[in-house]
């Protein structure tokens, strides 16, 4: 895992311009995601973690969002400079995304077969050299079975919606055994019982957990190098959440995808991530291997977050909360953005923003903190 990162975000800043106001949602964030790694990003609501996630595949609506500066290096190009019309060729097989709302992430008008088949055929088209995206050397499954003819594949992609042509095309696709088999393979991969039945169902006929599994199947069927999971389990209840997380962990190993896992749930992150970035008010305040960061937090915000989490420290007594509120990002506080809420804030914190990527003494490799007084953090009661 010492090769070049799959995606390298350098000094990325994103603003939202709403009316006369300008909100810096993400400020000078740098982050590397290595091959096969799961990198978690946690933070309170409004800290910019979803904005960061959507900015990587350039899915942010621009305007109102503007990428003010920085670079997103992916497969040798800077995605910030790639024109938007070229992005569809990079998305999907290159960078794919699972969203927060599994209940609405499937098109209600199409059967499950059509939706999974669409995802698979996007990859097939790319693999045929229409757009070279994938750099993966070893496919995890046997894809020697290919659609036999271009005509059949063209038919499997109905363009005229809902009408007779689409119906004819769909029947053609259903008669298309290779594509159908591949769709079934992926549905089995995400542990859907009886995938043959699911094929002809509409999304509203599936439960939330099933829908999210179909989403995961679709996303994985494109074999992305980077998968951005934006709170993929937040809308699911806890048992289903556990199932989906276990599934994702297994699939990460099988498909060898790197994942940027965005969540506000430390338990979920602890379960899945290898490394963790903690965001506060648009800044990445601490980054490090999950175990080390949980064991040895070096930013007062991380420490406060951990103390507010029911999974750690507190086995009895009330949970602590962080005093104060997230600052208004149109006028962020000067200096370190956390200083108004920080228990160890000093005059320097009010003047100077925290240092970027400084590794404090006594922590693991690649563990960095943006606190002036990182050494004092362990002493916070």
């Amino acid at each position, binding site marked *: 895992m010492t090769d070049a990162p799959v995606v390298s975000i350098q000094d990325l800043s994103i603003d939202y311009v709403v009316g006369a106001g300008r909100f810096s949602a993400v400020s000078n964030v740098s982050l590397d995601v290595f091959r096969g790694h799961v990198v978690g990003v946690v933070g309170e609501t409004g800290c910019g973690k979803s904005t960061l996630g959507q900015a990587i595949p350039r899915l942010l609506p621009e305007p109102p969002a503007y990428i003010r500066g920085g670079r997103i290096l992916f497969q040798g190009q800077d995605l910030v400079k790639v024109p938007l019309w070229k992005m569809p060729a990079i998305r999907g097989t290159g960078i794919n995304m699972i969203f*927060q709302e599994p209940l609405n992430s499937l*098109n*209600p008008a199409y059967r499950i077969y059509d939706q999974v088949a669409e*995802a698979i055929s996007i990859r097939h088209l790319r693999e045929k050299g229409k757009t070279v995206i994938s750099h993966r050397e070893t496919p995890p499954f046997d894809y020697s079975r290919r659609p036999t003819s271009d005509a059949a594949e063209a038919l499997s992609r109905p363009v005229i919606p809902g009408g007779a042509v689409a119906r004819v095309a769909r029947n053609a696709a259903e008669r298309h055994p290779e594509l159908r088999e591949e769709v079934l393979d992926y549905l089995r991969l995400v542990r859907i019982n009886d995938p043959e039945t699911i094929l002809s169902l*509409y999304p509203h006929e599936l439960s939330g*957990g099933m829908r999210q599994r179909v989403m995961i199947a679709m996303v994985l069927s494109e074999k992305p190098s980077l998968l951005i999971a934006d709170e993929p389990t937040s809308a699911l209840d*806890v048992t289903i959440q556990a199932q989906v997380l276990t599934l994702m962990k297994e699939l990460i190993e099988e498909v060898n995808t790197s994942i940027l896992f965005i969540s506000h749930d430390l338990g979920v992150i602890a379960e899945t991530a290898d490394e963790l970035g903690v965001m506060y008010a648009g800044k990445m305040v601490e980054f490090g291997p999950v175990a080390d960061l949980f064991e040895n937090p070096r930013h007062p915000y991380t420490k406060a977050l951990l103390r507010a989490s029911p*999974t*750690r420290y507190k086995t009895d007594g009330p949970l602590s909360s962080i005093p104060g509120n997230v600052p208004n990002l149109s006028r962020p506080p000067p200096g370190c953005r956390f200083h108004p809420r920080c228990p160890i804030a000093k005059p320097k914190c009010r003047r100077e923003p925290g240092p970027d990527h400084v590794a404090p003494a006594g922590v693991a490799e690649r563990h960095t903190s943006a606190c002036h007084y990182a050494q004092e953090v362990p002493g916070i009661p």
Partner: protein
Amino acid sequence: MAGSPSTGEPPSSPPRRRFTDRARGAGRAAARGLTSFGRSVVILWRVLRANPLTLVGFVLVVLIAATAAIMVTVPSLLTSFGVDQLTLDYNQAPSLHHLFGTDGNGIDIFAMVLYGLPVDLAIAFAITGVALIGGGGLGLFAGFWDRPGSVGGAVSVFIMRVTDIFLSFPSLILALAIAVSLGRGVWQLIVAVLLTWWPYYVRLVRGETLAVKHLPYIMAARAAGVNERRIVLRHVLRNVLEPVIVYFTLDIGTVLVTLSTIGYVGLGVNYPTTPEWGSMISYYQNAGLIGTYPWTVLGPGAAIFITVLAFSLLGDGLRDVLDPRSRRVLAGTPSRPSTSPAEREEEAEEVAGEVLEIPGPLPSAQEVNAPA
């Protein structure tokens, strides 16, 4: 949480099963072994059966369409008279020979109403069809590519402002004005009404597109690498289509009434050389026949009424046919294969076992926390 297997997802017991069991059983028997087309017919029948008024509308529309098709191909099946054929029976009251009677020239009213049917339908469909495709296409574009500052954004603003200009005139008055300047005739009538008709479709489709394009599944499709053209044509258009088709069907009735209105004020087509219902009523009224020979206008009037009613009734129920969500509920078609109770139990146990094996996030967090 890991200790409560009963909350695990039971994929084999959808709650719908309970109250639609009978319908599903019947449906399964009927739908088994059918082609995809056959299954669609079965579903259509169930939806229609659930909404009797829609069924009436559907049957009427089918009858109207069949009549129109016959009148275009072999009119002699339904009437022995030709278009504008003069007979020696002047001003006859309705009888078996002349179902709707005749006028002062001996023209058979029933025959003329029948000949008018394909003409009226063709004009109505030409107007609504072009408005749907043209106006709808513009609305789709204006709704989807409305990013300010881009070329698409500028084009959409232009489209919407032109639409606003057309909408700022009362449409019937504008249509009449255009009809006056173009003169009488089928093409002139189509153009006059069409020019006032398309802006509504732009508005409707743009509104629906704006609503649909921000839904998560559009974002998900984009993330999956689907290009913008395909997102518009496949993902947005299909979801915009339902309300638009419903509006379109209801609109056929509206446009028929508008045609009749224009025909009635004497700006329609040349009756009796071209049979058209609105012009027909206007012609006989101007000839002063309403009082003495009311059947001359009752025939075409009834034809307009029934046709408008048919499309309105059909349009009301069409949403249920088009929307997959209400379609399945109404049709009660089997969405899962039947499994025996024993199989279901087995499956549930399997699922429960799976859940039990999964370590919850809690213990793992503590594992991470534990000193190495």
